[in-house]
């Protein structure tokens, strides 16, 4: 599990875990609204910087502009998306019934009391949330479609794909 804080937003803490061979995605998807986490389909995340970029953007929006969704978690999902359609962002990045690899994200105020750890709910094997594992799970073609990266400038490596994705995250709606 990655437990971190973004230095510019010390009032928030971020916990992220990556699970593989998740058995109960179906059940988790139905509980998305009630559980204090975001569940993300790991196929759509190619790097740590991709997900953390979205977290940064979410906190930036919440702090200096306005919150556009109901919770910090849905804000993060929106911020992952290259478009400003909230439903669309959930559909694309949120956990799916058949997701095998799932990222659990908890973003909360520091003073907020502890919530149960992810593994209480997720039936799967936790692996390190790092680029090595993300690199095994992500779906290059899917990512290209989601972020509408045109084929003429096809990013070759995961690094360049990640770079294009980070750009898209930071430039959404601007």
């Amino acid at each position, binding site marked *: 599990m990655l437990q971190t804080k973004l230095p510019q937003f010390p009032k928030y803490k971020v916990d992220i875990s990556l699970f593989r061979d998740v058995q109960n995605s179906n059940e988790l998807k139905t509980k998305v609204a009630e559980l204090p986490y975001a569940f993300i389909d790991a196929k759509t995340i190619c790097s740590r910087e991709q997900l953390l970029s979205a977290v940064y953007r979410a906190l930036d929006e919440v702090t200096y502009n306005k919150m556009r969704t109901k919770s910090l978690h849905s804000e993060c999902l929106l911020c992952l998306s290259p478009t400003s359609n909230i439903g669309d962002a959930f559909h694309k990045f949120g956990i799916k019934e058949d997701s095998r690899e799932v990222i659990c994200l908890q973003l909360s105020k520091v003073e907020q009391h502890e919530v149960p750890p992810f593994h209480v709910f997720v039936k799967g094997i936790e692996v390190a949330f790092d680029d090595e594992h993300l690199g095994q799970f992500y779906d290059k073609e899917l990512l290209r479609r989601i972020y509408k990266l045109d084929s003429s*400038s096809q990013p070759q490596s995961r690094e360049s794909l990640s*770079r294009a994705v980070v750009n898209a995250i930071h430039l959404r709606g601007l």
Partner: protein
Amino acid sequence: MSEEITGQVRTYVTDNIPITLISQGAEAVVYTTPIHPYLPIDDSTKGEKYIIKYRPHKRYRHPSIDQALTKHRTVGEARLLSKLSQIEGLQVPKLIACDVYNGCLWLEFLGQDLPQGAGFSNLKNFLWMHAANDPYSNVVRETLLKVGHQIGLLHWNNYTHGDLTSSNIVLVRSQIVDGWEPHLIDFGLGSVSSMVEDKGVDLYVLERAIMSTHSEFADKYNAWIIEGFSNVYKLQGKAGQKKLDELLKRFAEVRMRGRKRTMIG
């Protein structure tokens, strides 16, 4: 005033992010920091540096103009960098984060210190360093050809830099022993442009910059840059050659009239 602005940035980034002022232009103030805005401190970020480019509020202009401009320019530069990063072979700093509400861009830090205390590895210092012993050495030639290549890529793809000086070209050590890879930085005045005039002015500004700091060797240096530049266009066959001829013709015109058009009173 820089203390005042630095104070604003300190408040904005918090004490968790130590900042060092490296340049203060008219429009933006640039800092470095060892802290990545969102990646945790570990092997991948340790010892790294990042750029924070801040466009401060200007009291002299009306608040609504000020806010609109700051946002417009921050987004503009971020968008430009994003587009440029997709051009194969073109080397520009990576966009890390963009906070339009505070006029801040986080960018990858490029460059390093040159050997023998010759200063930071921008093209200007690099040429100074070599001017002392072997101004026409192979590494100088190779590097300037590559500089030309970078500008060629930029122009061929219809972008212009707007402030192409030898300080805005930063060299990064390449895989080849003793080789350098030029990167273009500071696209604050950059734009999408297919106009030969804008491109001609870009080339002219760089030529002038080289002449003013390295006048003795400027002829050869500029010739190498143009050679590298031309090669990009020549690779594009007939169409490329045609555009190149047109561009170099305009470049010569710009040089003749000293950048500015003549105007009545």
